[in-house]
């Protein structure tokens, strides 16, 4: 196209003001479609295309920072006094007051104020105007809501390296504070930069512990003194007992001497009831139970070795892992051992042999928790391996009630202090189970997943509503249990007493029956023994047993080897006998119980022959045969 529009302007007109005027439309150029050009272009097929004009948005998750709150009070100071009067000067203030009383408006206002106030005062005295109208009527039975529990607070270990919460203790006065002992119980897994501190937390403030306790070695357990809420005693990992007074700060007031303490970590320490309120006793896996007077921690006041043969032999002693002491029965106490036995002891026995009264054998593993029912002290709860068991003191053979085997190990348990039929258990998968044996005995009434890691320690506060559980990562979770599980129901005590009695009776009957059977057996075996005098049928001593076991083992091994040899021989024989395979491909042979399946011309599989042979390993004669069958892969597995 050679259209060019020329625009000229005289030089003298440059810079002149533009004078614009209207002009009718003028056609400057009209380009008509040229059909010949259309052949240069291909029409594209129609296509549907979606177009969306949408705003770009992105999603972020934001977690607010934990907000730290601090509470403080305001002190009111006198103010409002005019500048010339010093509020501390009695004379001036009295004078001012007298002057104010003579004020005109004062004299006018007081009668009004007085009458109004008097009227209301008299009204209050006459009728309780804020009275609840339907108070005192029969309480409507609330529809039972499913039991629940709510997490109130989580107290996290402020250190970098997280330690397990191995011990918890509530403050005896109202439970505003919780003391937690942190240590690492895995053997030799404690890293060198692990902090040794344990903390006392205020329930309201999860941001910062209220007090840090600094022992010389990490604490495994601790206990508040129920008589004096300022003092605490703790057992540490190296076996020492440590005594704190919270008024005196974080450093321990006294430490027991290393020579006379336990030789293993102190797993449990409990205060005793005594006149001075300074006695405590501790237990550890070295097999000893030691009594201490906290005023003199250099040496224990008493010592008991948990030897079941009652000889005081430390080598044969059972390692103690939990202790139980009930203030209403101050002379008796119980010890749970690593071997699964619960030993009941009497403190006031004269000779050490009489100290151990009896043992209860029930668990396959260490008895991690042991507690008497606060309402029925004759019955106690033990937890170990995968079950929780309830025992009656009189029945020594077995527990009267037992939960079924749970999916994971139970680590701690305790009774509810307000409801006799409720107890709590902790498991290694992070679950807290609340059992109500009057309601359901086969399953927990409430099962909560508290955290992903294992839970190790549990304490219920005295009001029965708050439960603290400590986990492996150093988190202590505070839960509030719903009111149904923490208020005494009607008839609960009598129903539970009846249940315990029933179970105890059942066990007694079973025990009696067992005894009868045993007696019969014994009398029968004695009779038969008399007939067989002369036959040496005594017990093999250990060496003979070992020799016998060895012999059996070697026989087994030889038999297996022989079997393998036979199989290999068979396999070789098969490969040679393949030359006998004719061209029909449906072959089914069973080689001493093992089948060859021939599916398609290309596959012959044998199973279980023990050798891997590829066609290259076969002899040339076989290969000739194989040329008839193409694509045979002969895998002898």
């Amino acid at each position, binding site marked *: 196209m050679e259209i060019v529009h020329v625009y000229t302007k005289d030089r003298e007109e440059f810079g002149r003001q533009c004078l614009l005027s209207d002009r009718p439309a003028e056609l400057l150029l009209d380009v008509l479609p040229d059909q010949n050009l259309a052949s240069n272009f291909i029409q594209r097929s129609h296509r549907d295309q979606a177009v969306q004009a949408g705003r770009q948005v992105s999603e972020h998750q934001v977690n607010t920072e934990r907000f730290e709150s601090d509470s403080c009070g305001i002190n*009111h100071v006198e103010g409002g006094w005019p500048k010339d009067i010093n509020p501390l000067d009695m004379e001036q203030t009295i004078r001012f007051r007298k002057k104010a009383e003579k004020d005109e408006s004062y004299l006018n206002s007081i009668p009004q104020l007085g*009458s109004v106030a008097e009227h209301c005062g008299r009204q209050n005295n006459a009728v309780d105007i804020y009275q609840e109208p339907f108070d005192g009527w029969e309480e409507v039975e609330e529809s039972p809501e499913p039991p629940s529990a709510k997490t109130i607070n989580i107290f996290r270990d402020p250190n970098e390296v997280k330690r397990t919460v191995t011990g918890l203790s509530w403050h005896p006065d109202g439970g505003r504070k919780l003391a937690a002992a942190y240590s690492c119980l895995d053997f030799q897994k404690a890293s060198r930069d692990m902090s040794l501190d344990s903390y006392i937390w205020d329930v309201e403030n999860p941001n910062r512990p209220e007090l840090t306790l600094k022992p010389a070695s990490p604490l495994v357990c601790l206990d508040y003194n129920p008589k004096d809420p300022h003092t605490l005693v703790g057992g540490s990992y190296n076996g020492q007992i440590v005594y704190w007074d919270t008024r005196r700060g974080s450093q321990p007031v006294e430490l027991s001497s290393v020579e006379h303490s336990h030789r293993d970590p102190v797993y449990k320490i409990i205060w005793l009831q005594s006149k001075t309120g300074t006695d405590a006793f501790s237990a550890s896996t070295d097999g000893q139970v030691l009594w201490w007077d906290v005023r003199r921690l250099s040496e224990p006041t008493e010592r008991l070795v948990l030897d079941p043969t009652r000889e005081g032999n430390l080598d044969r002693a059972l390692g103690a892992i939990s202790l139980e002491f009930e203030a209403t029965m101050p002379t008796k106490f119980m010890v749970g051992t690593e071997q699964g036995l619960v030993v009941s002891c009497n403190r006031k026995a004269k000779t050490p042999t009489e100290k151990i009264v009896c043992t209860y054998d029930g668990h396959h593993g260490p008895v991690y928790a042991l507690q008497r029912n606060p309402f029925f002290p004759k019955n106690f709860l033990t937890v170990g391996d995968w079950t929780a068991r309830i025992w009656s003191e009189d029945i020594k053979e077995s527990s009267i009630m037992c939960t079924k085997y749970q999916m994971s190990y139970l680590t701690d348990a305790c009774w509810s202090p307000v409801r006799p039929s409720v107890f709590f258990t902790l498991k290694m998968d992070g679950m807290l189970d609340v059992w109500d044996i009057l309601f359901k005995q086969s399953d927990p009434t409430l099962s909560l997943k508290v955290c992903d890691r294992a839970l190790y320690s549990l304490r219920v506060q005295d009001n029965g509503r708050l439960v603290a559980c400590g986990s492996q990562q150093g988190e202590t979770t505070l839960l509030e249990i719903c009111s149904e599980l923490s208020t005494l129901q009607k008839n609960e005590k009598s129903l539970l007493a009846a249940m315990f009695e029933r179970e105890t009776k059942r066990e007694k009957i079973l025990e009696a029956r067992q005894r009868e059977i045993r007696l019969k057996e014994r009398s029968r075996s004695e009779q038969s023994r008399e007939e067989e005098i002369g036959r040496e049928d005594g017990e093999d001593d250990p060496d003979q047993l070992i020799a016998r076991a060895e012999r059996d083992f070697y026989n087994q091994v030889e038999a297996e080897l022989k079997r393998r040899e036979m199989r290999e021989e068979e396999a070789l024989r098969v490969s040679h006998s393949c030359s006998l395979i004719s061209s029909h491909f449906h072959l089914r042979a069973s080689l001493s119980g093992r089948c060859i399946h021939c599916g398609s011309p290309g596959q012959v599989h044998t199973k279980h022959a023990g050798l891997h042979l590829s066609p290259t390993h076969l002899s040339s004669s076989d290969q000739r045969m194989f040329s008839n069958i193409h694509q045979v892969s002969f895998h002898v597995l």
Partner: protein
Amino acid sequence: MAQVEETLKRIEASKGVIGTILVNAEGIPIRTTLDNSTTVQYAELLCQLSMLARTTVRDIDPQNDLTFLRIRSKKHEIMVALENNYLLIVIQNPCE
């Protein structure tokens, strides 16, 4: 003057009354039957509260004004009567 005295004495001697405080416009307790620190605390707090209550009432209706304020708590009842910027605070333990 005597009437004032009589009125106040009558209130102070009423059944169930724990204490009485009379506060003037500047917030200074003129007359009180309680100890100094408690008086100061009550006077300051209730002054502020009644001012707030008063502004609330007047915000809703400017023609209106607060005459009486009653705070019932678990332990006792605090009654505040307002007149002419004076506050009469009576703390009563209602016996039912």
